[in-house]
């Protein structure tokens, strides 16, 4: 017997329903008993088959215009391999990408971008780029850009939404060799643990990265982010090569000041 509500058992083919990828992922797995890995495999295939909602490209146009009109600088980040940002979210899958609550498209939360950039700064950029000691009176570069316990940072990291039509969700599998160890069950990893293939979702594509704040600090933010995304990567499984991205200029062709495109705001 499946684990879905009976009233919902007959719904199939989320692609033809133009469904919401995140909703299907969260609530429409057929069966999630642990012996049934087929359901999880089917689930990630179904979720990645769902097309981009038609409304999304219209929304994205406005989003871009709104970002520009509130002074944000735009760049584009392209995945090199695959990416799985979604740490800590409760889903039926162990690892997952973050899917947009309203549109179901994969995106990179601003907090994840900021976190990766801040980590790169701390680890590779020397003393000025570490959180200051509590006896230092003046904020240092790290504090100004990312903020510290006393004040918020000067630079805003917006969520990075995918460029319409230029992204994919992909069915993926991670083989967990030492499940008990990774669950922190204090048993050391042992060779006799049987490897378990765990289906999950990853994403590829191009994402619109937007930062706002004083121009000099925004430029520094992009610089750090460019190195961080290329060298550290973002999200889960970066040690297996996931999450590496190239940050590049965003073509502005015909996008400046097109307020007429906005949703007719007065």
């Amino acid at each position: 017997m499946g684990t879905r509500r009976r009233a919902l058992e007959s719904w199939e083919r989320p692609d033809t329903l133009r469904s919401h990828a995140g909703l299907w992922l969260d609530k429409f797995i057929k069966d999630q008993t642990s012996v049934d890995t087929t359901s999880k495999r089917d689930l990630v295939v179904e979720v990645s088959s769902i097309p981009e909602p038609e409304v999304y490209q219209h929304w994205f146009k406005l989003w871009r215009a709104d970002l520009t009109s509130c002074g944000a600088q735009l760049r584009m980040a392209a995945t090199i391999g695959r990416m799985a940002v979604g740490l800590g979210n409760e889903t039926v899958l162990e690892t997952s990408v973050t899917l947009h609550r309203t549109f179901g498209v994969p995106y990179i939360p601003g907090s994840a971008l900021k976190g990766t950039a801040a980590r790169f700064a701390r680890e590779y950029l020397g003393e000025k780029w570490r959180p200051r000691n509590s006896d230092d009176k003046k904020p240092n570069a790290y504090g100004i850009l990312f903020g510290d316990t006393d004040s918020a940072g000067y630079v805003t990291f917006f969520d990075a939404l995918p460029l319409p039509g230029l992204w994919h969700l992909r069915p993926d599998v991670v083989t967990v060799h030492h499940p008990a160890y990774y669950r922190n069950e204090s048993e050391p990893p042992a060779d006799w643990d049987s490897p378990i293939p765990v289906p999950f979702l990853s994403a590829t594509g191009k994402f619109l990265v937007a930062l706002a704040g004083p121009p000099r600090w925004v430029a520094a933010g992009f610089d750090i982010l460019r190195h961080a995304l290329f060298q550290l990567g973002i999200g889960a499984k970066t040690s297996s090569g996931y999450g590496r991205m190239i940050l590049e200029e965003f073509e502005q062709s015909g996008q400046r000041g097109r307020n007429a495109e906005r949703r007719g705001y007065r």
Partner: protein
Amino acid sequence: MKARLLFVHVLSALHPGTGQGVGAIDLPVAREKSTGIPYLPGSSLKGVLREACSDKELTRRVYGPDTDEGAEYAGSIQVSDQRLLLLPVRSLVGTFAWVTSPYILRRLLRDAQAAEIKDVPSGSIPSPAEENRCVVSVEGAAILRDGKVVLEDLDLQGDVAAEARQWAEWMGAQLFPDDEYWRRALVERLCVVHDGVFGFLLETGTEVVARVRLEENKKTVAQGGLWYEEMLPVETVLCGLVSALPVKATVEEVFSTVADAIRKPLHIGGKTTVGRGLCKLTMTGGA
């Protein structure tokens, strides 16, 4: 006193002030005590509007003196709490629905009358007959399939009603006056559910974001470093009133100051350094 109707349209997830923590969520959104409806406190919106006004002298006349100058005189503006009007809810068919309820629409009607808006739908408020039914605007709506609407994992029978269409068109005209695509989108996606079902969606259907603080240089979660924040998702619409009580500024000055301030999107609520709370405001009413 003159009033206008304000709409707050959420462009990036909004955390409008923190309410009482209940169980699962560490940082819930502010809710009305009696109804549980999320709202943006008028005082915080007033602060944002004040901040957006660059003319110091005008700011003082419209919004009142800076707090440290003492209250020699009151401001000429009143901003009410902005209450949730449309909640975008994930829909099994057609990705998302803009969901509201009869109670919410009745309150909107009252606000619209206070703002002397004449063209507000005068007929009856669309109301589902039972808890397991909902009202949509048109046959073949984007969220309707075989007479059913499924919001999250809630199955509803969808009925088409002309009143729902009138309300969708009227709200669309206020929110997107010059954009036919989005007016049509609201007609296609509006879903009026029973007040009880809406209450359930408000409890369970908002966005909850897990936030983690990692231990420095490690990838494990720091002690006390996992918490859940409740957010109003992108495409949420809130509404309320802004009123002018001429003290030092005239009615015209008050409304034109607000109109100037809302030309660009505004940052509202907490966590703005990770891009939260970008909102576009529109103001309608008066003549």
